[in-house]
Structure formats: structure tokens, C-alpha cells
């Protein structure tokens, strides 16, 4: 019967107070685990999605909103920009590569993004089956989309107007799945990609319908979107498509040339580091557009979230501290009751250090079980949170293990030792003759 087993048995002999201690520790550790996992994942997602993009140009408004909508596909776009202005920027000597984006439709909440092959290059996309979109209304879908919506190459579906909701379905054209992307670990897993003319054409018909007086029940969300994709009179539209088939400087096969056309945003890669200083200022001052740096806005966003994370962190630390005190009080009180037990153990031949071990193991076992339970609960809770998250782009998962969790584990151990060391030293020092003669 080792000291460890005696400690273990002792914990089991008072299940209620042991359970309370374990719960307190598990709660504190659980919160810390969730914070650690979530902030790591959010940080990774922020970095992963914006790592190759130096600047986003879009309509005037909140720069954060522009980044959120065009890099992370979370918020609504700030508005549309004229294609003509975008073209000018694309030809700017500071710009190495520019990716046009046209948003405005969704399929079951998944954004349909009109873009060109620059997008493929920037995000280094590959297809696992099928091919990239080429003709109008052909789409290539992200790996998560394929899994979640059970779509495969050759499937067709109708897009709906707006970025969420499916009240206003574009029944005139069906999209056809041409290919599925390999998992990228970023937003592209949750997007449906097509060419820009598809998005335009979808909305040309939409406008036609509207002009024909069809009831148009758009909720408020859509109202904001409505203007994004507003295009010119539909009478010109056949003409545009002729133009679009001609080579253009953006990407001949896909992006239209018509000067009245609009897109949502431009993702830009700089040609040289010097552009960092010059280009955003030029965009903001010389044009009617807005330039926002993903790196800067992500940092700003993270620092905003950071306040909440910090608060929760301190809250969790406080709980851990209370747990430590609770374990301490528990051990200290039980030591008073058990001092006679411990003295008896000494008369049976137990050494001082064995008594020390019995008490310290009890503290460590309590906090260790609490810490492990807390880490497990934290993972499960985050997985649950992830499952209920609306935005699939920012979905968090609990099923990853981080190296940093070893620190949580170490902290749990440290708390156990901290809480148990005073009672253990008392057990070590106890004068057994005195204790035994008292009774």
C-alpha cells in the first residue's frame, strides 16, 4: 500500500468535497483552455487568410469591414467600386498582382465569389477533383462546401441574392460545379468560386425581373446588398458579353471590360516594399476608393478581441486561485481530523517523508484530475461552440492539441503543490507523541 494509494483512497472517502475541488479547478482550466484554443485558432485564421495579400481596395467605409468582408468573408462589403477605377489601380506600377472580387450572392449561406485566376494564384489553390471554373456559371467549390453540402462535380444549384438567406433565389441561371478544391485550411474551403461575369449576369436578370415588377421581398440584410450588384441597364447587356470574351488586361478570359460595371473589392499584392508607404495613401487621397491593410486591421481586430480575452483570462486565473485556496482549506481541515490517523501511521512505521508524500499526493491528485478534466471539457466546449457558430469561415474546433496546453497542465500541478505544501509540511513536522497523548 503505497502513499499514493492511501492518498487516492482518502480522496474517494470524501467524494463531495473532492468533487467540489475538482470542479473548481476544472472550471478554471476549462476557461483557460477555451481561451488558449480559440485565440490561437483565431490568430492562425487571421494570419492564414491574409498572408499573401498586402492591401484591399474597396468602397469608402470602415476599413475593418472591408477587410472582414473581402479577406475573411464575414461582414458585408462596404459597397461596390467602379470597374473603371479598379482597372486603373491594376495597371499601377506599384501593383504586382490584383484580384478582383464580386460578391452578392450565396448558396445556403455560403458566399458565391466572382473572381479570376489571379485568385487561384494568390491563394495557391489546387483542385482535388474536376477543374477550375472557366465558362459562365461554372463554379469551383471549397472542400468544406463539398463535404457539408454533399456536392460533387456536375451538380447544379441556384444562388440566392444577398450574403445570407435564401428567400430570393435566382432561378434563371443554375450554377454547375466544375471542380472541388483541395482543403486549404483557410477561407477558400468555405467559398464557391466562379467568374465575375456569372455574378453580373445573374444580377442582370435579377434587375430585369425587378424591372418587370416582380415582388421583391428582401429583408434588411439584403437591402444593403442590393446596391452592390446594381448594374447598368439591361439593354446593353448582350453587348457586354461579347466584350468579355475579348482579351482584357485584368485576365482576358473572365473579367469584363465594360466601364460601367462594378466589382466589390480588389485584393492587391505589391511589387516592392516601397509600395507599402506610397500606394495606400495614393488610393485614399487620389481616388474615391479606400485602401485597407489586412495586417493592420487584423492586428486592430485582435487587440479589440484581446480586451475580452484578457478579462476572461483574469477571471479564469481568479477561479484557479480560489480553487487552490479551496484545496488548501480542504487539506488543512482534513489534516486536523486526520492528524491522529497520521500519527497512527507513524506508529506503524511510516516515516515523516511518507506522511509528507501522502498529503502532497492528495493535493496533486485533486488538481491533476481537475486540470485534465478541465482541459477535456474545454476542448469539448469549444467544439460545441464551433458546431453552433453561424459563420463557417471562422469556425473553431476543439479537436486540436496545442503544445501550450502543457503549461496549463504544469499550472495545475503547481497549484496542487502550492495548496498541499503547508499541510504536508505540518504532517511532516507533527509531534506524534503529543497528538496521541491528547486523545
Amino acid at each position: 500500500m503505497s502513499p499514493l494509494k492511501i492518498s487516492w483512497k482518502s480522496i474517494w472517502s470524501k467524494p463531495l468535497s473532492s468533487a467540489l475541488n475538482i470542479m473548481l479547478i476544472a472550471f478554471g482550466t476549462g476557461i483557460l483552455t477555451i481561451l488558449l484554443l480559440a485565440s490561437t485558432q483565431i490568430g492562425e485564421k487571421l494570419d492564414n487568410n491574409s498572408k499573401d495579400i498586402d492591401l484591399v481596395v474597396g468602397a469608402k467605409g470602415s476599413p475593418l469591414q472591408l477587410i472582414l468582408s473581402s479577406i475573411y468573408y464575414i461582414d458585408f462589403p462596404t459597397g461596390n467600386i467602379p470597374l473603371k477605377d479598379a482597372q486603373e489601380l491594376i495597371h499601377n506600377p506599384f501593383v504586382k498582382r490584383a484580384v478582383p472580387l464580386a460578391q452578392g450572392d450565396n448558396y445556403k449561406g455560403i458566399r458565391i465569389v466572382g473572381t479570376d485566376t489571379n485568385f487561384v494564384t494568390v491563394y495557391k489553390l489546387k483542385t482535388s477533383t474536376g477543374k477550375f471554373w472557366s465558362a459562365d456559371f461554372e463554379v469551383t467549390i471549397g472542400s468544406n462546401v463539398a463535404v457539408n453540402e454533399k456536392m460533387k462535380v456536375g451538380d447544379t444549384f441556384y444562388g440566392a441574392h444577398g450574403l445570407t438567406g435564401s428567400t430570393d433565389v435566382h432561378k434563371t441561371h443554375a450554377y454547375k460545379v466544375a471542380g472541388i478544391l483541395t482543403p486549404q485550411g483557410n477561407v477558400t474551403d468555405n467559398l464557391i468560386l466562379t467568374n465575375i461575369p456569372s455574378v453580373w449576369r445573374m444580377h442582370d436578370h435579377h434587375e430585369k425581373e425587378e424591372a418587370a415588377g416582380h415582388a421583391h421581398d428582401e429583408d434588411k440584410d439584403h437591402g444593403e446588398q442590393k446596391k452592390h450588384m446594381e448594374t447598368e441597364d439591361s439593354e446593353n447587356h448582350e453587348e457586354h458579353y461579347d466584350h468579355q470574351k475579348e482579351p482584357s488586361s485584368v485576365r482576358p478570359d473572365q473579367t469584363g471590360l465594360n466601364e460601367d460595371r462594378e466589382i466589390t473589392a480588389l485584393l492587391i499584392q505589391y511589387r516592392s516594399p516601397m509600395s507599402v508607404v506610397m500606394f495606400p495613401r495614393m488610393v485614399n487621397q487620389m481616388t474615391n476608393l479606400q485602401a485597407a491593410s489586412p495586417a493592420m486591421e487584423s492586428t486592430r481586430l485582435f487587440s479589440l478581441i484581446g480586451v475580452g480575452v484578457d478579462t476572461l483570462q483574469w477571471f479564469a486565473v481568479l477561479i484557479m486561485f480560489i480553487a487552490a485556496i479551496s484545496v488548501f482549506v480542504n487539506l488543512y481541515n482534513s489534516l486536523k481530523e486526520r492528524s491522529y490517523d497520521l500519527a497512527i501511521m507513524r506508529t506503524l512505521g511510516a516515516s515523516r517523508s511518507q506522511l509528507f508524500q501522502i498529503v502532497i499526493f492528495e493535493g496533486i491528485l485533486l488538481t491533476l484530475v481537475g486540470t485534465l478534466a478541465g482541459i477535456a471539457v474545454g476542448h469539448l466546449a469549444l467544439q460545441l461552440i464551433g458546431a453552433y457558430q453561424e459563420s463557417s469561415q471562422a469556425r473553431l474546433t476543439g479537436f486540436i492539441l496545442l503544445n501550450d496546453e502543457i503549461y496549463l497542465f504544469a499550472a495545475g500541478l503547481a497549484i496542487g503543490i502550492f495548496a498541499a505544501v503547508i499541510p504536508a509540511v505540518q504532517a511532516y513536522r507533527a509531534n506524534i507523541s503529543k497528538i496521541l497523548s491528547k486523545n
Partner: protein
Amino acid sequence: MIAIQSVSHQYSEANQISFNDWQISNGDQWLLLGESGSGKTTLLHILTGILKPTAGEVLINDTSVYALSSRKLDQFRGRNIGIIFQRPHLIKSLTISENLVMAQSFARLPTDLKRVNEVLESLGIAAKKNAYPSELSQGQLQRVSIARAVINKPALLIADEPTSSLDDKNAAAVLELLLLQSGLNQATMIVATHDKRVKDAFTNTYELR
């Protein structure tokens, strides 16, 4: 042989107790008599090696116990001295047989479940070996504490007021078991008591004044 030689203990300057020399042959059964406050508990603690006297020597089987290091003394106590207290103090979180196994392992002896069964059998409580102390009666508990004291076949068995909290019937039974067990395990026994019911069973008496 067990002996104390010119032992005295000083709790404070005013409070000093001296004890007469005492020699006990192996296998003897002694009664230690004394009123409360006469230093009975002090002497028992000195004999069991948990209270180092300020002067004098305690020899158990030719070992001067207070000359041993603290760790050695703990082990010596576990192997050679069995103690029965007035109240049967068992570890509540452990079953009866676990309490006995614990005594074996604290003495750094290998776990011997055969011996555990044998001792419990001889005390008539083998049926309770997987029960917890809270499920046993006072008389049964006192038997378990005797079992715990003799589990390691000690050279010296010390009982401190083993009968004072028991009724006549149980007191007689416990006394009988003590005498029987000290004989079975060939242990020298010292019973400290002021219980008149016990006195007649002993021929050797050491009286504290």
C-alpha cells in the same frame, strides 16, 4: 530482552519524570499500573520509540532504539513494536484488510494477504475483511486494532488502556485475545491500565509512583 535504564523525561523545567529501571524477558506479559498523571503514557511513548527521553536508554532486543536514525527508528517501530490504543483508530478510507496491508507496507515488509487472513481468522473477524471501519462495532474494531498490532509479528506488543472503553463482556474477550495473540506471535506484552478487571490476569506488575 527489553530494558529501560535510568530513563527520565523532562517536559519543562518544573515537570520531570524519572522511571525505575525495568527488565523484561522475551515472552513475558506485564501489567503497567499507574494513576493518570503518573507518567504512564509518557513511559509507553518512550517504550514505543515515539518520544525520545531526555536521559537514559531503551533497549529492545539489544537495539538501543534512540540511537537509531529517525528513518531507521520508524522502520524498527513498524517491524518490532505493535501498539493497541484505547480507541481502535483505523484509517476510515481503507477497508479492514487494507488497514492491515498498510501496516505491512509501512514496516517495509512485502504484502502478505495469507498472513492478513490468518490474523483476522484467529481474531474471528475474517468475514469483515472487505468492510470499512464505519461498518464495524466497537468490539470488532478493537479486534482489528489488535490484528493490526500483531500483523508484523512484533517482538513487543504494547496496549494502552485496551479495555477501558469496553463493557465487561467485551473487555474480558479483548483481554483474552491479547494474551492469546501475544502467545501466538511470541511477543512480549505490556498492558498499561488502571482497569481492575484486567489486573488478575497478570503476574508481573510494574507500578508507577
